[in-house]
Structure formats: C-alpha cells, structure tokens
C-alpha cells in the first residue's frame, strides 16, 4: 500500500472512515510505515490545535436558550402576521377592482347615452378630426367589447385549469368575499344605498343598481372619499400633539420629549441648541449619522470643552423618539474612555435604553424607550 493521503488520515481521526476493508488496510499500513505514522501524529496535533483555537471563540457567558414557548409564540405571531398581510393585500385589490369596475361601467353607459348624438363609427368621414380624437379617448377608457360566449367559456376553462389547488381556489373565494365587503363599504360610504343595494348588495340586481348609481357625477367622488376613509382607518396614523418640531422652531410642546428631558436633567451638561443639518455636519466635520427610514424631527448641537456633540432626533413609525447622539473623537483616548467623559444626558423619568457604537473616528450613541434588541436593529440602519 502506498502512503496514505492527508485527507484519509483526517477522516480516520474524525471517525469517518467506515469499518471495513479500507480501514483495516490503513491500520495495517500504519503499523509498518513510519512515514505515515508520523503523518498521522502531525494530523492529530493539527486537529487538536484547531479545535482548541475554535474553542477560544465560543461566546461567553455560556449560551442560555430562551424558553421554547417564546420561540413557538414568535412563530405563531409570524404566521398570523403573514395571514393578515395577505388579507390586507386582498382588500386593497378588491378596492381597486371595485373602483375600476364602477368607472368602467360608468364610461360604457355614458357612451351609450351619447351614441345617438354622435356620428356612426362606419362613417368616419362625417366627423371632424377633433371629434374623432375625443371619441377615441373616451373609448380607451371604456372596457373592451364583450367577447363572444365561446371565447368567454374557453377563457373560463383555461382559468379553471390554471388553478393548481385548493389554496388558489380559497384565495379566489377570499377575494370574492372581500370584494363583496368592499362593495358594501362603498355603498355605505357614499350614502347611496337604496333598494336592492341596501338590502342585498351581492345580488345581480343590486350590483346593476350600484353601477348605475355610481355613474351619477357625484358618486365617484363620494366613493373615493369612502375608500379614503376606509384606507385611513387601516393605516397607522402619526402620533399627534407631541411634535418635537413646531412651525417655527424646535421643541414646542413635548414635556416628555427626549430633547427637553436631556436639557432638564443633565444639568451639568451644556444645553443643546437647535441647528440645521449643515451646521450639525460642520460640527462633526463630516456627514451626520441618521437611522435610515426614520423621520428626522430636528438637529441640535452643543459644545463640550473643545468638542462638539450633535444630536439627531428621529421618530419611529410607532411614534417613539430616538436620539442619535454623535461626536468626533479628537484625541487619543480610547473610544470607551471618551464615551464616559462626554456628558450624555441622563433620562428623566424612565430609564431609556442606550447603545453606543463607533464608526471610523466618530462615536455614536442611540437612546430611546425601546428594547435593546429594537435599538440594536436601529443601530444597524445607521447611515
């Protein structure tokens, strides 16, 4: 047997060489070949050393797993979140479909009502050019001409074949249900519910009545208003009454706002002064770090000794104020030491979570009434 290759020796040491003729032959060879025995010893030392090196990178303290129930709860919350988002998308589609259908039917009826006054299509020469263009424009808004029944049937067959399973069928049913709900909402919202619409909005008679009603000139506007009201109801609205930035200045009526809190509590620290982004950038001698995707409510600066601190006040979608305090490192102090030297306003009433990070030659401190995990995620979005 020729000398054993290194890979086989490592597989042997790892216990990955299955018992059998190959392994027996290897062991017999090792007994008689000093070169391979030496190679095996070297491989063993390499293996042990690499294990001990990797051991050094095990995070300390030892990992304690959060309760399994917590993971289960997160998984369940996520699946229900997916379902809610799917339903929300379906609702939006239903709204769009309802409005498009209403507008389309309206255009068709309008064309039919106007038809006697217009020249027949078969006599284009009888129309002047502007009229023909106007008619073309109107037709482009109307739905396509009804297709022959055979074509519709073919399409229906194809459509039925294209549905691969129950899930898609369920989705269509869901859509139909939502569409029906949307129609009811439109009717209720426009205040146009009469007759069949009010009593049974899903019946063909009600649909026809609704379509006619929506052709009324005021109806599309009312329908759009109704849709807007419904949409507004679904969208999280910004928190009102505690805006940090007033019409003319900074910090108007925000007793709990981070800015006031910082000024009031950290009495030894110099007060913050409202600043523009460019002033803040000059103070930092570089671009101001901000959390991407969060609205910026204002900038402030202050001098601490020879250094300048900049604060960006941002707000999450949920209305939580996040402070991004930052300053340039100007001496040879360690980042951590400097962090401790620089006054950072202490929270007033409730302890806020604070994370500190270093980016190149700047220190950045994030503070908000959020969990550490949430703040850490925001930290990753700093640009």
């Amino acid at each position, binding site marked *: 047997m020729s000398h054993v*290759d*290194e*890979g*086989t*020796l*490592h*597989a042997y040491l*790892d216990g*990955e060489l299955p018992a059998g003729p190959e392994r027996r032959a290897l062991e017999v060879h090792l007994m008689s070949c000093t070169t391979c025995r030496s190679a095996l010893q070297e*491989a063993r030392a*390499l*293996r042990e*050393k*690499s*294990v001990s*090196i*990797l051991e*050094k*990178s*095990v*995070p*300390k303290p*030892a*990992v304690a*797993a*959060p309760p*399994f129930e*917590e*993971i*289960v709860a*997160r*998984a369940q919350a*996520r*699946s229900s979140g997916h379902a809610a988002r799917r339903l929300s998308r379906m609702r939006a589609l239903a709204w769009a479909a309802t409005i498009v259908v209403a507008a389309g039917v309206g255009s068709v009826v309008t064309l039919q009502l106007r038809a006697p006054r217009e020249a027949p299509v078969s006599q284009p020469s009888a129309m002047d050019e502007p009229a023909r263009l106007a008619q073309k424009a109107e037709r482009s808004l109307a739905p396509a001409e009804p297709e022959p029944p055979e074509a519709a049937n073919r399409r229906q067959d194809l459509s039925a074949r294209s549905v691969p399973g129950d899930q898609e069928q369920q989705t269509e049913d869901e859509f139909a249900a939502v569409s029906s709900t949307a129609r009811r909402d439109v009717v209720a919202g426009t205040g146009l519910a009469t007759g069949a619409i009010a009593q049974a909005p899903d019946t063909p008679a009600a649909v026809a009545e609704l379509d006619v009603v929506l052709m009324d000139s005021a109806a599309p506007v009312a329908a759009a208003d109704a849709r807007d009201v419904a949409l507004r109801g679904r969208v999280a609205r910004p928190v009102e009454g505690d805006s940090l930035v007033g019409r003319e200045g900074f910090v108007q009526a925000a007793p709990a706002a981070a800015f006031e809190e910082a000024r009031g509590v950290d009495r030894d620290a110099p007060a913050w002064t409202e600043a523009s982004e460019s002033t803040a950038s000059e103070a930092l001698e570089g671009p101001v770090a901000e959390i991407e995707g969060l609205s910026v409510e204002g900038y402030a600066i202050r001098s601490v000794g020879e250094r300048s601190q900049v604060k960006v006040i941002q707000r999450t979608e949920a209305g939580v104020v996040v402070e991004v305090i930052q300053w340039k490192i100007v001496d040879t102090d360690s*980042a*951590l030491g400097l*962090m401790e030297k620089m006054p950072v306003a202490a929270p007033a009433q409730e302890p806020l*979570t*604070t*994370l*500190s*990070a*270093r*980016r*190149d030659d700047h220190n*950045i401190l994030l503070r908000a009434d959020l969990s*550490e*995990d949430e*703040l*850490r995620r925001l*930290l*990753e979005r*700093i*640009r």
Partner: protein
Amino acid sequence: MTVDWAQAYRSHYAELVRFLHRKVWDAERARDLAQEVFVRALDHQPDNPRAWLFTVAANLARDEARSAMRRRHHLTLIKSEASGTSAADPAADLERTELMERVRRALEDLSERDRDVLLLWDTDLSYDEIAAQTGLARGAIGTTLARARRRLVEAYDALEERHVARG
C-alpha cells in the same frame, strides 16, 4: 415524520449559536439568528431538523455578512448601557476579546468553503451532512478539513507571534 421540536431546540440551540457566532462575531446577533432559525423551522417543519437548521443558519449568516458589507461604514458596538452589566474582570474580558479577534482573523485567512466545512465539522456535523450542505463529495471532506485546519493553525500562530512581539 414527527419532529420533537422542543427537544431539537434543547439539543441544537447552543450549537447553532456557536456556529453563528463564528460567522457574525456578535454573540447577541448569533443568539438572535439562532432563534430566528428555530422560528422558521417551526413554520417549515423540515424532516431532517439538524441539517436544515444548519443550512438555514449558514444562509442567514451569509445574508448578515452581505448586509454588513453593504453598510458604508462598519459600526462596532462598543458598549451597551442598557444591559447594565459590566465585566467583573476587565482584564480577563479584554484578553478574551483579543483572543476572539485573533481567531476571527485566522478564520478569515481560510477560503469561504474551507471555513464553512471546518465550522460545520466543529458543530458536530458528520461528513455526510457537511457534504450534503456544501455540495462537496463526501470523499473530499477529509482533504478540505486537513487544509482548513492547517491554514487555521498557521494563521493563528502567526497572529499570536505578532502579538507577543508587540508585547
């Protein structure tokens, strides 16, 4: 096949964190990602939990690395005041941080494939499982591991020598 996920969680969580930590080099992030892996597992219900968990963990770690590279500047978390924990022994803490940094840099010296194979082996995955996950032939795992171990040891020793020389 029904998987006892509570048991799988108890058995593999620590391994996953260890594996992820060597990929993202942030203990907290490694824990977050390990939990995320299990959340996804409960949703997907894979038949072979162990292989699936590490495959997803490797993918998450790769995504994490990509997003970190996309950041214009690398942010290094240097202090968490919220946790309120301070090192009982700052000198030991510093030493551990330096060791970890050396291991990280030594691992960076390996090719991505060699590093993946070594880290998967270190989390007790068999050659068959490593082959399935990396797409390598089973017969190539031993050779890859031999090369990865050698490079890791050489790179680590070189870093340690430099550290000692600096005093």
